[in-house]
C-alpha cells in the first residue's frame, strides 16, 4: 500500500517535473530569429517586382 502511494507520488512528480521542464526550457532566442527571417523575406518579396523593373530601366549599370 505504501509502495503504491510512493509510485503514484513519483509518477506525479515526474509529470510535474516534465511539464515544468518544458515551460522553463521554451527557448525564446530561436523564435526571435525565425520572426526576423520572416519579416525580412516578406520585405524582399514586396520589393521584388519594383527591383526587377529598376534593373530593366537601368540596364547600363546592371
Amino acid at each position, binding site marked *: 500500500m505504501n509502495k503504491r502511494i510512493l509510485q503514484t507520488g513519483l509518477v506525479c512528480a515526474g509529470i510535474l517535473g516534465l511539464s515544468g521542464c518544458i515551460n522553463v526550457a521554451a527557448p525564446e532566442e530561436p523564435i526571435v530569429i525565425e520572426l526576423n527571417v520572416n519579416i*525580412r523575406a516578406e520585405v*524582399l518579396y514586396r*520589393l521584388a517586382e*519594383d*527591383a526587377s523593373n529598376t*534593373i530593366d*530601366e*537601368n*540596364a547600363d549599370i*546592371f
Partner: protein
Amino acid sequence: MTLTPKTSIRKTILAVIAGPVAGLVVMSAFAAPAMAQRDPAYAAARASGTVGEQLDGYLGVVGQATPGLQDMVNDINIKRRTVYTRKARENSATVEQYATTAGCQAIARTVPGEKYQAPDGSWKTRTDAQPERLPICP
C-alpha cells in the same frame, strides 16, 4: 454638320500626318529603356569573370583588382546606390533592403560564365543550373 469637300480633305491630311507621329511617339517610349546598354568594358569584365554580382546588390571585383577595374566597379556601385536610395524611399524600405532585393534578382539574371557571390560569401561561376541564392530571396 455637313462635310464640305474642303474640310473632308483637311481631316484626311490630318489623319495621314497624325498617325505616323503618334506611332513614333509610342515606339520611342518603348525603345527608351533598351537604349541604355552596358559599357563595352563593363560587358567584357562580366563575361571574363573579373567582376561579379555580390549578395548585397553591388558589383565586386573577383580576384586581383587593377586600379582601372576598381574605378569602373566603384563608378557603377555609386550609380547603383543612387538608384537604390531613390527607389527605397519610394517604397518605404531601407536602402539595404532594396539593394539586397536587387542583388537577389541580379544574381538570378547572371548568365553562364559570369561570377556571382554564393550565400557563404565565395565567388561562384554561373552554370546552366540555378544560382545558389540567399534563402530569403523572393
